[in-house]
């Protein structure tokens, strides 16, 4: 797909060192994200979707090993099998929001303080200055003898910083942003906390935002609101968004392009319209057919048979062949190469090009 690629992942293969030896979790995954577009990554457990997200922002656990390929950001290599170079991009170039906002926010600091810290990080990146968490905001530090102080204290900031914090909270559509500045995370609802996380990510003015299961812990009505907020971020701020989810329907709501992953491989990659209206890979077809919708439908839906194989010991050949309704001889013997059919990348022998004579 043409355009202005902010981030690209090329042929990335990653393995974890475990007691049972090397376990490959990503196998030759390639994708790119453009400014202002949302790329949805869908997969079930063991698909490698979270490892993909972590690799893009350089948060891979120590036992992860890049076997092949890499990640480039604005044309610059930030992750290869030899080195990783994230210090310059994390916090300003690429930001991430996670599934459970309560785990990602510091419970003993007020919201305003934490957003001020994010703003300070960004400014220090921009002017290269050393920084301290208390540069932009102060509140009585918890853990001191006067820990009750923090219960009664308020966030103290300069008027400019306060205005920026309030603007950010307004941008993520929090009601009463002035009041929320002085709230602790536990005083907010799940949806509000996730909005605060997004506000902190926005404070860093990232080019790329990674949202890993960012709405999974939220109620459906709240999820709908956060999704529409994510859609607006891409449109209004031209942020490139990598939306990782196990939920095909969430991705269908907001993504421009979709990558479907199964056991570490990207099995289908196309525009959202193509994937949802005319899916090619039998796995995508099966997934789409196994989700009840609120539309009129008669009779019983047909599930994908069998269970997900152990990712540390994937089936030979095509990894989906053990559950595929269209399996034939070649599938168990030979791993299919990615082919392009009508602009859709698909990894399946059904669509393999005829060998040229």
């Amino acid at each position, binding site marked *: 797909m043409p355009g202005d690629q902010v981030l690209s992942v090329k042929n990335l293969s990653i393995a974890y060192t475990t007691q049972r030896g090397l376990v490959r979790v990503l196998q030759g995954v390639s994708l790119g994200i453009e400014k202002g577009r949302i790329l949805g990554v869908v997969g*079930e*457990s063991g698909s490698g979707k979270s490892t993909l997200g972590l690799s893009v922002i350089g948060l891979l656990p120590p036992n992860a090993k890049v076997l092949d390929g890499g990640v480039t950001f604005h044309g610059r290599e930030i992750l290869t099998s030899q080195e990783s170079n994230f210090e310059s991009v994390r916090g300003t170039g690429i930001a991430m929001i996670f599934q459970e906002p309560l785990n990602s926010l510091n419970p003993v600091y007020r919201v305003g303080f934490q957003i001020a810290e994010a703003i300070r990080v960004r400014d220090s990146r921009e002017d290269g200055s050393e920084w301290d968490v208390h540069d932009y905001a102060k509140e009585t530090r918890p853990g001191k003898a006067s820990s009750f102080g923090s219960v009664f204290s308020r966030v103290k900031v300069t008027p400019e910083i306060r205005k920026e914090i309030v603007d950010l909270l307004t941008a993520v559509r929090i*009601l009463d942003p002035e009041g929320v500045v002085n709230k602790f995370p536990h*005083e*907010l*609802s*799940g*949806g*509000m906390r996730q909005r605060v996380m997004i506000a902190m990510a926005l404070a860093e003015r990232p080019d790329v935002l990674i949202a890993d299961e960012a709405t999974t812990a939220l*109620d*459906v*009505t*709240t*999820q*709908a*609101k956060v*999704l*529409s907020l994510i859609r607006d971020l891409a449109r209004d701020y031209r942020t490139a968004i990598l939306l990782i989810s*196990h*939920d*095909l*329907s*969430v991705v*269908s*709501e*907001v993504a421009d392009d979709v990558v479907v992953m199964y056991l570490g491989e990207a099995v289908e990659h196309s525009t*959202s*319209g193509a994937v*949802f*209206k005319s899916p090619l890979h039998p796995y995508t077809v*099966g*997934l*789409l057919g*196994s*989700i*009840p*919708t*609120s*539309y*009129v*439908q008669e009779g*019983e*839906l*047909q*599930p*994908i*048979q069998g*269970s*997900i194989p152990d990712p540390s010991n994937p089936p030979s050949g095509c990894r989906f062949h053990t*559950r595929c309704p269209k399996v034939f001889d070649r599938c168990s013997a030979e791993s299919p190469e990615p082919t392009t059919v009508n602009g859709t990348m698909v990894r399946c022998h059904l669509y393999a090009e005829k060998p040229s004579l």
Partner: protein
Amino acid sequence: MPRNQVSETVVSVSGLTKVYLTSTGVLGLGRRRRLVALDGVSLSFQKGKTTAIVGESGSGKTTLGECTLMLTRPDSGSIQYSGNDLARLSGKGLNLARRGMQIVFQDPYSSLNPRMKVDAIFRESMSDSSGELRDRMSDVLRSVGMPPDSLDRFPHQFSGGQRQRLAIARALMANPTFMVLDEPTSSLDVSIQLQILNLFRDLQREYDLTFMFITHNLAVAKYMAHHIAVMFSGRVVEYGTAAEVIEGTKHPYTAALLSSVPSMGKSESIVLNEKSDSALPVLSGCRYRTRCPYATEKCLDEPPLADIGNGHLVRCHYSDKMSF
């Protein structure tokens, strides 16, 4: 409930109320807050049918399931099951009276004892140990799609979907007539969820089971249920047949839930017409009024749960004007 067809009520709850006292502040010395988890809920469950309880977290749907089985004792109200009011029983009498009731939980990783083999887990839920026990266990395993040799294995040797099948089999071992299914597929992978949903549908046909199916997903409720009860803030706000609730929605909250279900590219994107997502509970009048786009002064008064025809119940002052 006035119905044309003759239907046998297996369980009926009426006026169920449960209030939790929560405390805030350091060491719980702060203000005490009353959290009304259930506020006068009345529902009945017909034999061989599924009633879905739909709502978001905090709506009281799980508390309703627990109170119906007397796993949590309600503060007031009654639970009629096979000639007894469970709420008036305790101890052995209660255990005897609710033998035909079972529950399947959301998380199959925490609901099976990791130190017991499947065989022992099943034996626990059997009240009498008859001679052909192993045979019966094998039969039940087969009916949930698991091989008989599962009996000699431990829970950790199975995947999430398989464990949920075992949890269902354990419930079936007790020969239940009524089962509470509390988000039984929410922690499973997408490709496994439908397998389990279809299993419940098959089992219901085979054993004429009555289900209370608790879910946050209206689309799943529609797929599974004959009747749907939508709960908000401890109350039923809409109740009717699945078709009435989904296609003839009359409560603004049901409409908000419906429009939040992603449509998989089959229609317009989410248009959610709610005002705020305040975390503060509303304690008087219509509980939904602070989020409702149609709220007026009148909504400061509590609306009754009114029958708008055919047993379709709606708790809204403006139900006659609503169409979505």
